[in-house]
């Protein structure tokens, strides 16, 4: 069933009775060419691009919960490509280009809104760092513009510019950055993969990975064993547990990142705004009207999917310092996500020590924007057994060798510094 304006009009006039489920609910087959463990955004994108770009359609996506119920439905939906390090830079640029064609490609409205992101800075040093990053972004073929305080006051009139503690020196505008509707991204990719023949199997937890003589044979699941020529792990947040089934220890520590949303308000924040001060704060307004905002990790290993009050307090302090008007809004809810923190703060897309077993993870707190390119590059690796050029830097052995480490923040490859 294809979506079109005509179809929406027709359904609107006939009681919306003609819509059908967006994807099938198949029982798992005994064998597939590729089994993807994890039906999050990255897993669904991988299945979609395997089918679309490589013609591999005998594929199952195994999801232990339901589509849209994991990190893909729990993030703050920001899409941007302002990375600096070789490896990251070309990858996120590739991802942004895929985002820009995604809705047409999927025939699905993912509400991708390139409303622009403005990164504020509060000191001369921070301005230098922002300009260095902007120049890297321009060199990668994307765009960035420096905004003076005068320009900012016209664009973001609601900020407190005269504060003494963190005065605003200016901002960097990334016009092509923005947000997308996170659930719709999962649904659109699931529908796109399903239409090309991929089986999306929900409520199917993988409990073991079968190998023989160093070659993958398939997986054990809560819905029985499934044989597979290739098995692809992509289970952000639970990477350690699934990789352990294959005897792997990963350079990943799972942390909690909190997010917050207010009651729905009339449109007031037109961009994604981020603020450095002595920590981190970022905010955007959803199309439903809620102000969606967050800050840094709580800073300790956690799978609780909820955070503690000190970081909640810090984020709210930052919000009040930056835009005092936010104090009039009521907080609707807050939650925590489980972040795969790699030791250099960048992801992994690579083969493993087992033939036919692939690993994708370590997306830290930035996985949402990476969804199209992660799926695109992972599908390329699985189909062709060699990395896609845009994702070739995400090697698993970079930690051991020290070659090609991507520490965006310049803090080195150490777990507690990202």
């Amino acid at each position, binding site marked *: 069933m294809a979506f079109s304006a005509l179809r929406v009009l027709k359904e609107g006039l006939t009681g919306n009775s003609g819509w059908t489920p967006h994807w099938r609910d198949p029982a798992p087959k005994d064998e597939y060419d590729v089994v993807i463990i994890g039906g999050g955004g990255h897993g669904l994108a991988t299945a979609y691009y395997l089918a679309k770009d490589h013609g591999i359609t005998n594929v199952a996506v195994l999801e232990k919960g339901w589509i849209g119920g994991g990190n893909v439905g729990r993030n703050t939906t920001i899409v941007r490509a302002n990375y600096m390090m070789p490896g990251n830079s070309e990858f996120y640029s590739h991802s942004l280009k895929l985002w820009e064609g995604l809705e047409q490609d999927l025939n699905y409205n993912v509400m991708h809104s390139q409303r622009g992101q403005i990164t504020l800075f509060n000191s001369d040093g921070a301005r230098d760092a922002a300009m260095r990053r902007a120049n890297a972004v321009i060199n990668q073929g994307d765009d960035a513009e420096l905004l003076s305080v005068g320009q900012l006051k016209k664009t973001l009139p609601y900020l407190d510019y005269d504060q003494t503690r963190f005065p605003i020196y200016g901002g960097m505008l990334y016009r092509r950055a923005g947000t997308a509707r996170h659930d719709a991204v999962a649904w659109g990719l699931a529908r796109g993969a399903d239409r090309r023949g991929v089986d999306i199997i929900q409520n199917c937890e993988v409990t073991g990975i079968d190998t023989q003589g160093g070659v993958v044979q398939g997986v054990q699941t809560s819905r029985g064993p499934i044989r597979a020529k290739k098995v692809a792990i992509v289970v952000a947040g*639970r*990477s*350690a*547990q699934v990789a352990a089934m294959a005897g792997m*220890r*990963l*350079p*990943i*520590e*799972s942390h909690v990142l909190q997010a917050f949303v207010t009651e729905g308000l009339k449109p007031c924040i037109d961009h994604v705004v981020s603020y450095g001060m002595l920590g981190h704060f970022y905010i955007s307004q959803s199309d439903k009207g809620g102000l969606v905002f967050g800050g840094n990790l709580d*800073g*300790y*290993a*956690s*799978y*609780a999917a*909820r955070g*503690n009050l*000190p970081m909640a307090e810090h984020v709210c302090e930052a919000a009040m310092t930056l835009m005092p008007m936010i104090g009039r809004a009521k907080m609707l809810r807050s939650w925590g996500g489980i972040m795969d923190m790699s*030791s250099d703060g960048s992801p992994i897309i690579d083969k493993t020590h087992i033939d036919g077993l692939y690993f994708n993870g370590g997306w830290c707190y930035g996985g949402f924007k990476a969804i199209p390119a992660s799926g695109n590059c992972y599908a390329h690796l699985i189909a062709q057994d060699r990395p896609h050029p845009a994702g070739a830097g995400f090697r698993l052995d970079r*930690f*051991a060798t020290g070659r090609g480490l991507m520490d965006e923040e310049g803090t080195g*490859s*150490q*777990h*507690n510094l990202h």
Partner: protein
Amino acid sequence: MKIPCPLCGARDSREFSYLGHAGLLDRPAPDAGDAAWDDYLHNRDNPAGVTEDLWSHDYGCAAWVVVTRNTATHGILSSRLAKDGAA
């Protein structure tokens, strides 16, 4: 979250800074080889459940504390001074 410091008693987690898994106390020998050092520096068991990790009581007695806690619930089970070594 309150962290029980063996010297100071239960204190707000804001008094502490977090380093990581207590396996960091088992430092390989200088000549243990690249694989052992890579494993020590980067790889983690990363359990979803009971773990031991290192917290420094920066805004208290400055002791390094090994805290046994549950990463799935944030429940804290026990603590001891890191200088007393492994349990």
